[in-house]
Every structure is written in structure tokens, then in C-alpha cells.
């Protein structure tokens, strides 16, 4: 981490432009940030349009998905009263959290090893890495099921987590590796010259520099796992089934407002979680926002 502290409002020396703790002054060259701004605005509009629909109609007093007829919380009542749905939601969150932690750890280590090691089998390993991304989910699901049954492992939440981690590792590795490629190994070498062991260097220099990629990959993995249907269906025990399995099975009879209510609820939980990640450390007195620390602002 950088050792220079900056006080808010103080323009730092030009060399500190590396950090970006204060907003970098818009490059004088780009005469059309306006275009980018509008583009991004439209992008968010389109991105959230269906979400807005989902949220809006989850509060619909009638069953309709075309006409909003009034405000009502009945679908949320239905959702919360349904014990099976509640259990499914909790199971999905647990699975996604576990998957996120393990897959991110394994994937990051794998990325580092692949980039820094120079062995004959790294080519094969690179290919092996891509294979899960190419594999259709149904194939991955069926083969995971086969493996578990041949080995005699009883299907349960554990088997789902195992399967999810397996297909998530590749995503993490690909994302982290991209960031690793642009890291300057000189910094690591310098640290080791100063007496740090490889492990210390990895922990104190490399990991923090990789944080944004790791966080990004982690979020991706969480979303993927939380949303997964095919793989989960094949590897789940009898109960509770993860939420997407329920939704997928139910949706063929038509989208019910309860399903929209579930979707909105999932969204709210995510908003709160991410909001906390950003706001909490600030509330606890640190000058930098939590996510900022997470995302590796070097002058935190």
C-alpha cells in the first residue's frame, strides 16, 4: 500500500496520479465526455428497464403483468409465508456465498501460478481452464451427477456447492489473469530485494493490487451461482432446492407476481449488501469508503 497520505482537497504531486483517490481531472484531450455520458446513461436505462418492470409488477394488486392496477403487498406475503420458498432462498444464498469464497480463492491462486510458472504442462492447464467455459451446462450437470453417484456421494447442498465451485474457477482465473498481466513485476522484485519472502510479497503486494479483479470476479461468481439452474437441478438433493430451480420449474405455467416479488426481494438484498459494503466503513469512521478500500485505492 502507498505510504503517502493525502488530505482531501489537497492536490497531490503529479506522481501520485497513479492512485486516483481524488477524481482525476478529465483529460483535457477528450472533447466529448458528453457523448460517453449520454451513452452510459442510455445504457443504464435499458439495463434497468426490465428490472423496473419486475419491481413494479411485484407490487401489483392484480395478477396481471400488463396492467398495473393498484399497490399491494400480497405477493410478498405469499412469498414469505411459503416456508419452502424461504428455505430455498436461504439455501441459494448460502451456496452462492460458499462458492464465491472458495472459487475466488482457488481461481486467483491458479491465475497467479499460471502466469508466473513456466512449466510444460501450463499449456494443457490453459486448455483445461477454458473447457468449463465451453461446456454446456447440461453436460456439466449430468457429468457431475454421474461422478457423485459413482463415488457414492449423497446429493445435498454440499454437492451443489462442489459443482458450482468447479464451474466458477475458470471465470475467476480469466478475470484475475487479465489484471495480473498488466501488473509490473518490478514492484514484487523490489519487495523481495527488501527482504520480504515470496508469501509476504504475494500477500502484501500482489493481492492488494489484484483486489479490483478479485472483487469483480467474486461478484460475478456470486451472481452466477445464485442464478444457476441446470447444474443445481442435477446436483441437488431432495430439499431444499435452490431458488432458481423452483423458479425455472414454475415459470412454465406463467410468470406469477410472486415470482416477480422473489426477484425484487433478491434485488433488494443485493442492493443492501453492496450498499453496506460501500457505506459501512465510512460510517465507522474511516475516511475511505469500504468499496474503495476493497477496490484497492492505494492511498487508503
Amino acid at each position: 500500500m502507498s505510504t503517502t497520505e493525502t488530505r482531501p482537497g489537497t492536490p497531490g504531486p503529479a506522481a501520485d496520479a497513479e492512485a486516483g483517490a481524488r477524481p482525476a481531472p478529465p483529460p483535457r484531450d477528450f472533447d466529448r465526455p458528453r457523448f460517453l455520458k449520454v451513452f452510459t446513461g442510455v445504457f443504464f436505462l435499458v439495463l434497468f428497464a426490465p428490472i423496473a418492470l419486475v419491481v413494479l409488477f411485484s407490487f401489483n394488486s392484480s395478477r396481471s403483468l400488463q396492467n398495473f392496477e393498484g399497490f399491494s403487498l400480497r405477493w410478498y406475503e405469499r412469498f414469505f409465508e411459503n416456508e419452502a420458498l424461504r428455505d430455498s432462498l436461504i439455501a441459494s444464498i448460502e451456496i452462492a456465498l460458499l462458492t464465491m469464497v472458495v472459487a475466488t480463492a482457488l481461481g486467483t491462486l491458479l491465475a497467479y501460478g499460471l502466469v508466473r510458472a513456466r512449466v510444460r504442462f501450463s499449456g494443457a492447464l490453459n486448455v483445461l481452464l477454458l473447457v468449463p467455459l465451453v461446456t454446456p451446462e447440461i453436460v456439466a450437470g449430468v457429468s457431475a451427477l454421474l461422478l457423485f453417484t459413482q463415488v457414492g456421494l449423497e446429493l445435498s447442498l454440499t454437492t451443489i456447492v462442489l459443482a458450482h465451485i468447479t464451474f466458477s474457477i475458470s471465470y475467476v482465473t480469466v478475470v484475475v489473469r487479465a489484471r495480473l498481466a498488466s501488473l509490473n513485476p518490478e514492484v514484487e522484485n523490489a519487495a523481495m530485494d527488501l527482504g520480504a519472502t515470496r508469501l509476504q510479497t504475494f500477500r502484501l503486494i500482489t493481492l492488494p493490487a489484484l483486489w479490483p479483479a478479485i472483487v469483480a470476479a467474486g461478484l460475478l461468481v456470486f451472481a452466477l451461482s445464485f442464478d444457476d439452474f441446470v447444474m443445481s437441478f442435477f446436483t441437488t438433493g431432495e430439499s431444499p432446492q435452490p431458488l432458481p430451480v423452483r423458479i425455472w420449474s414454475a415459470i412454465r405455467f406463467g410468470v406469477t407476481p410472486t415470482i416477480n416479488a422473489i426477484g425484487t426481494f433478491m434485488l433488494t438484498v443485493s442492493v443492501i449488501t453492496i450498499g453496506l459494503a460501500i457505506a459501512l466503513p465510512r460510517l465507522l469512521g474511516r475516511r475511505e469508503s469500504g468499496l474503495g478500500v476493497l477496490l484497492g485505492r492505494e492511498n487508503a
Partner: protein
Amino acid sequence: MSPGWEGRLDRRELLRAAGLALGTGLAGCALGDTTRGSLEDTRKPFKKAVDGDLVYFNWAQYVDPELLAGFEKRYGVKVRESNFDSMPAMLAKLRAGIAYDVIFPSAEFTQRLISGHFLREIDHDKLKGSDTVYAEFAQPWYDEGSKHTIPYTMYATGLGYRADKVSGLTGSWRDLGNADSGSRSFMLDDFQEGIGMANLVNGHDLNTTDEGELDESLDYLVDLKPKLRGITSDTVTSMTSGNAWLQQLWNGDLVNIRNQVDNPEDYKFQKCKEGIPVGNDTFAIPVNANHPGTALLFIEYMIEPENAARNVEWIGYPMPYQGGPTEAFEGLVADDPSINVTAKDLENGHQFRNLRGEGRLAWDRAWTEFKVS
């Protein structure tokens, strides 16, 4: 870095060779259990009494949740629900050895499960209300002597259409391509229903495996394809969203559609004159169920007249039991009785049978060719 192109090819060949070796070593072995238990296992008697929670495996939204809650309350057990979204998927989980207590296979799959010793025998004498089932189901083709199952719902396949938008209907399956539907015709994404429909149109047996007749059906379907807007089994969504005006669907789906639109009277069902597929699914108790007693109690509970009637109204499909359930469904479709499945329909209707071996492969090939054409 790793060796170049040749190196990688070597590895790939190695993998192939390994696969071949593995295959040779396992040659002749089946993937997964093909039978579950022995004949005795399926015949082992059990008491109709609560012996634990109910592990329930079914399509989603296929039993009124209030009924499930009612069952929980009456017997003081929990209903642990799992869902599948296709019969083969259900079979895969069953083969993997998961111990469900009550399942709901279709007629063909019931037959397959029975032949693999997957289902327990159920004593109908112990099952109160089992005498109200329609006479046609006393000796079902899929379950000799009705020893292992009792029917759950029945269905018929036909053409659902919007009377206010579609014209030119002649009562035939050909209407799917010929009627004026504003280019909003859909067919089911189901190989049985698709090829079956073509077979009926051409005047052949629903389940024919004759190569010549199948080729005819394939031709019919390929000609039909450009006139279709989509191929989907998501019939409820496509009709309620206004995407589809004319659609091959199951009668229960039409009931659900009518529930969700503002003008249900405009949504009608056409039972086509060349013949209609009818079918049913069943209540069944797997041989490795841990709580068969609770399962039997559940089945009995579900076929009680008031409960069955209530269920019919919730799921929109008829249940073949006299009294309450029959009247309930008649009430649902009073303005368009053709949506119902009557005894006559069961008599005259065609039922899908299990296809085996070459015949099955021929159907799959035909369907695949249709899809990629």
C-alpha cells in the same frame, strides 16, 4: 511455454485414446441404475400410517399449495417439495438414487418405471375413494391391474385459439398452418406431440414407427415450419402475452390462460377431427421411498372429493374421479365444454406409447431433422 501445435494435438489424442480405453473397459456396462430393486421389494406391504415427512417430487405448481398445507396440518408432517421440469430429468434423479416418497410420472414413464421395478405396489383396497376413479382406468395399458398407481390428472392435446382474432378454422390439425392467425401460430416443443400430430394428419397411427410414414410426417412438419412463428411449450406465456393467437397446447394450459386474461370467453379449444392425443399421469410411490405410509395417506387425501375438486380448480386440469372433481372441471369450462376430457375422448383418443429401440431412434432423428431444417 508449452510445446507448439503438435504437442497439443498429442494431448488431445491421448485424451481420445483414454476415452476409448475407458469405454472398452466399461463396454457393456450401463450408465446408472436401470433397475432399482427386485420384484419382492416392489411387493413389500406397508402400513397406511404416518411414518415421517412427505418427500414430494412433482412439476412445479402442479398441486394446490393450500392442499399441501392442509395435509401438513392434518397429519402433523412436513411436505418437502422438489420440482422437475421434464420426465427425463425426473428419471435421471430417480436413477441417481434419491429417495422420494411420492412422484407423478406420465403414463409412458409409469410403464418404464414399473418394468424397472422402480415402483411399489399399492393396495387399492386400502385407498379410500379409489373406487371413484373412471372405469377406463381400471386396467390401464401402462400398469397391469392398476397395481402400482392411480391416476392423477388427464389431459388432451388440441389447438387453442383466440376466437376474436383467428378465422378460417376447419376443425382439422391442418388449421395450424392454414388458418388465418395473423402469423401467430405456435406448436409444442415436444417431439411426441409434434410427430404425433403429423402422423394423425396423414391418417396414420399416432405411434407409428414405419419409416415411410415417419418420412411423410417429417415432410409435413418441414412444410409447416415457415408458417409458424415459434415452437414452444411455454404456451401460457405466449398466449397471455399476445404473441400467439393459435397454438397447439394441452387443455389444462388453456384453462390457466383463461384465468389470466381479461376476455377468457374468446379463448377456445379445438379438438381436431383427425384425432387427439389423450393421456394422464399418475400418483406413484418409488420402491426406495422412506415414508411410503405417509405417501399413501397423501394420495388418499388428494383423491377425497372436496380436495380433488379444489385441486382441479387450482391446476386447471381434470382429474378422472367421479363426483366432485368432475363437476368442478365442468364448471371451469362451462362455456366451452370441448376443453374437457370426457369418457368418449378417452375411448376414441389416441394414447402415446413407449417407443423402443430403433423406433425411438427414428422418431428422435425425425424431430432433430425437423428442428435443424
